[in-house]
């Protein structure tokens, strides 16, 4: 493939990713909803969408996306007749969109052609997107440091500037015994961890790392070298990291060193935004939302946003204090009859005694129950 082709591939892939993410959102959400998901916005509406429509693989796939990038993609999708604008339903409709038969066909064809099913497979849990980045930063700096230690050259500039990551690596290689264990065992554990992956994914992971004998390449540089597109390599890269995290979490004994990278510190719950995590700590002590709002000096509506976030990410939380099982059933029934997740429509159906918070909590928990 020459570079002209990889530019074409890049464009096709971006459209394919966007359209596949938009399929379930059609007629329900605005054109922007998928943009927020791909960018990885932390807002509750976005998190809820990811959860309700099972869009985990797409969440935070392109954190560097700008609005202009997105508008360009959407314009192409309209030009190719893959999308049609559409008026929303209900008393205060927001404009939404429909995917045409053409669009559906293109989306399915590209899904097949680029092997999305393979690359998306590990993304079955919500927290992976958030963990990928810190995992990669830790791994990158750790490998660089151990490589420099092995090469007996400590005058290097760390590739990761993030303070907390540097601190973590320092803790790993500081104590002499632990340092020796890393020096002796890192290469072997990485080999066992990555050996089952596709060779192209292995190469993608190793080539980006830095150490005493190599400076890591950027994804853009590797795309050029492989005459592939950066978007495609992004899919493979995220797959490689997610698969690594899952395996390390499941087989801690087999990877005594590398499993340290996936240990969750119990400072603030990493599944939540910092503010929601602070609220969760109080919720767990049995404090009611009004009191939490007062203690934390935030609006009660903010605490309610947190509760929804907690309902989404923390399956162990019991929301019975806020939502009785009868109310939950009524909300679910309304949502199903109306075939929608739009709060306003559901609220109109179930009546004034049910609050928006209750509807949001019920919807947040829906996916989980259908899995059981």
């Amino acid at each position, binding site marked *: 493939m020459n570079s002209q082709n990889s530019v074409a591939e890049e464009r096709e892939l971006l459209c394919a990713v966007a359209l596949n993410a938009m399929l379930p959102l059609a007629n329900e959400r605005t054109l922007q909803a998928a943009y927020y998901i791909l960018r990885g916005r932390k807002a509750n509406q976005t998190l809820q969408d990811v959860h309700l429509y099972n869009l985990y693989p797409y969440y935070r796939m392109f954190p560097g996306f700008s609005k202009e990038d997105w508008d360009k993609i959407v314009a192409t999708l309209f030009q190719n007749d893959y999308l049609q604008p559409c008026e929303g339903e209900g008393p205060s409709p927001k404009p939404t969109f429909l995917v045409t038969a053409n669009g559906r066909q293109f989306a399915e064809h590209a899904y097949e052609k680029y092997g999305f099913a393979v690359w998306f497979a590990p993304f079955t849990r919500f927290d992976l997107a958030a963990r990928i980045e810190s995992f990669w930063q830790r791994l990158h700096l750790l490998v660089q440091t151990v490589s420099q230690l092995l090469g007996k050259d400590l005058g290097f500039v760390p*590739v990761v500037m*993030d*303070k907390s990551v540097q601190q973590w690596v320092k803790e790993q290689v500081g104590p002499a015994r632990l340092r020796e264990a890393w020096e002796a065992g890192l290469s072997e554990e990485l080999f066992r961890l990555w050996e089952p992956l596709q060779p192209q994914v292995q190469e993608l992971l*190793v080539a980006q790392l830095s150490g*005493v004998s*190599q*400076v890591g390449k950027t994804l853009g540089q590797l795309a*050029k070298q492989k005459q592939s597109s950066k978007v495609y390599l992004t899919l493979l890269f995220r797959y490689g990291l997610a698969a690594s995290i899952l395996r390390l979490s499941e087989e801690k004994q087999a990877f005594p060193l590398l499993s340290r990278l996936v240990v969750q510190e119990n400072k603030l719950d990493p599944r939540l935004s910092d503010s929601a995590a602070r609220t969760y700590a109080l919720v767990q002590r049995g404090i009611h939302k009004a009191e939490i709002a007062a203690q934390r000096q935030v609006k009660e509506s903010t605490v309610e946003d947190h509760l929804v976030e907690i309902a989404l990410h923390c399956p162990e939380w019991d929301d019975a204090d806020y939502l009785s099982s009868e109310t939950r059933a009524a909300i679910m029934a309304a949502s199903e009859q109306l075939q929608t997740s739009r709060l306003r429509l559901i609220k109109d159906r179930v009546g004034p005694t049910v609050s928006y918070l209750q509807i949001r909590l019920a919807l947040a928990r829906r996916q989980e129950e259908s899995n059981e």
Partner: protein
Amino acid sequence: MNNEWQQQLQQHFGYGEFRPGQESIIKRVLAGKSVLGLMATGGGKSVTYQLPALLLPGITVVVSPLISLMVDQVQQLRTKRKIPAAYLNSTQEAAEAREVLQKIASGQCKLLYISPEKLQQPYVQQALKRATVSLFAIDEAHCISAWGHDFRTDYLRLPDTVKQLGNPPVLAVTATATTAVRDEICSLFGIDRENVVVQTLNRANIAYDLAEVGGESERRQLTFDLIDRLAGPGIVYCSTRQAVEVLVAAYQLEGKRHVDGYHGGMNSMERMLIQTQFLAGELDVIIATNAFGMGIDKPDIRYVIHYQLPASLEAYSQEIGRIGRDGQPGYAMLLYSQDDIHLHQYMLDKEYPTPAQIQQFCQLYGAGAPPDPKALASIDMSEEMAAMLTFYTERALVKAQVSTTTEMANPVQDIWQETEKRKAVKQKKLAEMRSYVLTDRCLRKHLNQYFGESDLGFTRFCCSRCGLQRESYEGRQTALLQREVQNSWNLRQALDMLLPKK
């Protein structure tokens, strides 16, 4: 040279002797004088405060506006030079800052790099008083001057801070300062004439070239041709991120050299990788915005091309100052067009407020604390402009408290006059930049005269006005290709390479 100094210089910095100017600055500083040091970029500014820090009791404070540079320097001091150094800036977490403050108060720290705004916090000043500041160094000292191209309002508070800290001697260092800026720094910090030390600012090994271009395609063609021919490593400076991206993509399609881009919009790991590749000689050329180059320690950069006109001669000389720090010949090319000047003018007009904008800002401010981003968005004002207006508004309020009420009749007018003064300074900088590209006399003479330097010596060629042969800076060698062709992928081999057996 004093024996102890020499020993420290050798032990911590690995140099046998001082570079020009360093010794006379250090001598004065150690004698307790306040000093202004004018050092060429790459002339070894930092040694002039790092070495005294080791020899003096107490702590040396280094004020620096550049956070990334601060972090780099402290990292180097700790690992390579074994000097107990630390930094404080607003990017740190509270716990980390507390730890640093404890170290300072208990005297475990010889050198503290600090950002000007952090220095204003009372608890920081208290910790410093306890540790006793023996030297107050100000990096990029030209930032204090309203005449400077980089004026920072935070810097204006520094003379007061020096008093707060018990008047330790001040060492102001800068690479770029015109006579007016020098005079202002001296009067603000009470520096005597005989304690102004000027290292020659003339860069004898750099040849200055200049070309006017008609349009974008001509500009690009000329640049690509230069990149293909000139001996590297080199840097191409563009004025926007977008220009960097477009140029990199276009060159990579057709060019011969290994080229990549660098700008503030890339994520930090990507930037670090590109920078490291350049330092390791894996890239011939970096195409970058002015975000690239601060604190880069690469002595063999052979050329810098300016794809567009920089905003001031100060910025220009700082950027080409990165050429040839090894003393070997180097080449600086500046491309410009009439459009460049118009573009700078447009940006300048956008940067400073109109009276109506000041009026709106003062109304928001009157409501209480400085306005939040939402309020700013409602009057369509950038955060940069708001920061500038906050400063001037606060100052106007302070002035109002000490003067009679009648004088405070129109703060908007007062503030507008202040910002217009600032704008006029930048306007003048732009005019000076313009006159540099339009001159028909020697470029070296023009540039050096601007900085008050009379030395005009040169090693290979002087400039395109005096006559230079571009071919003499050409070279065919390209960056090493890093195992680009690999026969077959082997995970075990790749890992053995990355993590060699002990």
